[in-house]
């Protein structure tokens, strides 16, 4: 089994961070992982993304041209990556910022108001964790328990954020598990 996900959004939305959390969790579970960031010359407001591959066997290409899943936090990312997804691929859309859907009908799309949920739960900056939660709710590339552990470890030095980050992650996870897409 190999899962491949592209996480994409504006620079600053925290896509690299949730990609790393997924990679840490994969390592924690003894899996093979690669985390590859986009590092092109970007302007302010530009799009940043990373590709995370988690698998049971050594990973060939860390670069994925047609991924099995995409987590998109802004509209340019949806427009760029939705067309590249594999058939029956997973698409997690931040509906707080993206009014449109992909026009593909062969995807498993899930819409979630990540920014609104994060703000309601007390930390506007953890919208990325709502998105990660929704992705793990759709496809357990790693278990949600391991992600919670990875959050605790990553925010070791900022313990005041651990609880709210775990909470926002779990909110996304449970909404996706329950199939409550914001359609």
């Amino acid at each position, binding site marked *: 089994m190999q899962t491949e996900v592209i996480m994409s959004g504006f620079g600053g939305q925290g896509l690299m961070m949730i990609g*790393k959390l997924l990679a840490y969790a994969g390592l924690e579970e003894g899996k093979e992982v690669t985390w590859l960031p986009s590092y092109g010359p970007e302007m302010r407001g530009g799009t940043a993304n990373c590709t995370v591959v988690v698998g049971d066997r050594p990973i060939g290409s860390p670069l994925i041209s047609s991924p099995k899943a995409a987590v998109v936090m802004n509209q340019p990312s949806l427009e760029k990556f939705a067309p590249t997804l594999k058939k029956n691929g997973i698409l997690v859309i931040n509906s707080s910022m993206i009014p449109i859907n992909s026009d593909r009908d062969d995807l498993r799309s899930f819409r979630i108001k990540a920014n609104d949920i994060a703000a309601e739960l007390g930390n506007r900056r953890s919208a990325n964790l709502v998105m990660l939660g929704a992705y793990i709710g759709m496809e357990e590339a790693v278990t949600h328990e391991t992600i919670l552990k990875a959050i605790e470890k990553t925010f070791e030095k900022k313990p005041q954020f651990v609880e709210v980050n775990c909470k926002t992650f779990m909110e996304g996870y449970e909404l996706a598990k329950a199939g409550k897409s914001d359609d």
Partner: protein
Amino acid sequence: MAKVLMKGCEAIGEAAVRAGCRNFFGYPITPQTEVPEYLAKRLPEVGGLFVQAESEVAAINMLYGAAGVGKRVLTSSSSPGISLMAEGVSYIATCHLPVVLVNIVRAGPGLGGILPAQSDYLQATKGHGHGDYKLVVLAPSSVQEAVDLMYEAFDLADHYLTPVMVMGDGMIGQMMEPVEIPPMRDLDDLPAKPWAITGAKGRKPNIVNSLYLSEVACNANNWKMKEKYDEIVKREKRSETYGCDGEKLDVLIVAYGTMARICNTAMAEVVASDKQKRIGLFRPITLWPYPYEALAKEAEKAKQILVVEMSTGQMVEDVQLAVLGSRPIDFYGLTGGLVPSPDDVADKLRKILT
């Protein structure tokens, strides 16, 4: 030891520290700046020295000095910076000094771009600076291999008294993968360097010099270097194969570094959709000395060869030298920071196979 998740550049820095390197001189350039960034913090922790030089030209001459006094020393740069260092590396090689260079290759020529490329192959393997010298060139295809080769690069450099380059593309530098970091070398166990300039108290002075005004002495030193290179050619060639176990292959892919992994995935994709097809992959790990004989042996099984690179085909001539016209050689490559995807390579393979 448990594995940790590290970015290639940082893992390279840590591997150097573990290998007993306590001196780094360099200048920032994307996509390898995380190497100096990491070492700026890490080296002082272990009593080491980190200097951000005023330029690459200055940095390589600092390496020259540090190696001359017998210290394990590293620099790291990316393509245009490596070009600037060429003169200094030529001096260092002439003086039989061990240094380790990292080149995290970016798109060229010129100032090029900051994205991954493999377009410094010819520079690294055939020339670099002026004169009759060679660089040992190691090409990792994963963060773990980058760590392992870095660790070994210092031993190779000390053993042969020659500069060694670890060459990766931007993906090796920027990617995170789980790695097992090797143990810390005891500095007291590092090879003795009786030739180093350490103050001539009680002995005859050692001289480190690359200026030979006597043509006879210059000629002699060049042949002394050649002898060393012949020894390296004899002993240090390394490569790996994938899917080459059978007796016959429809296509043998030749690729190195990250490109080899991408080809591996492409190969699996094509074989999965057509089980009749037999595709193998040959991955040189030492780009100099090039594993000609090992490649020739695998090529005998293959109807044809496909070289894949992030360049316009710089490695093709080494593949030609390996197979000596016995097999047709096709090439696929992208440059400028474009990375051939597994799908791109699979399409090319299908075209060849029909």
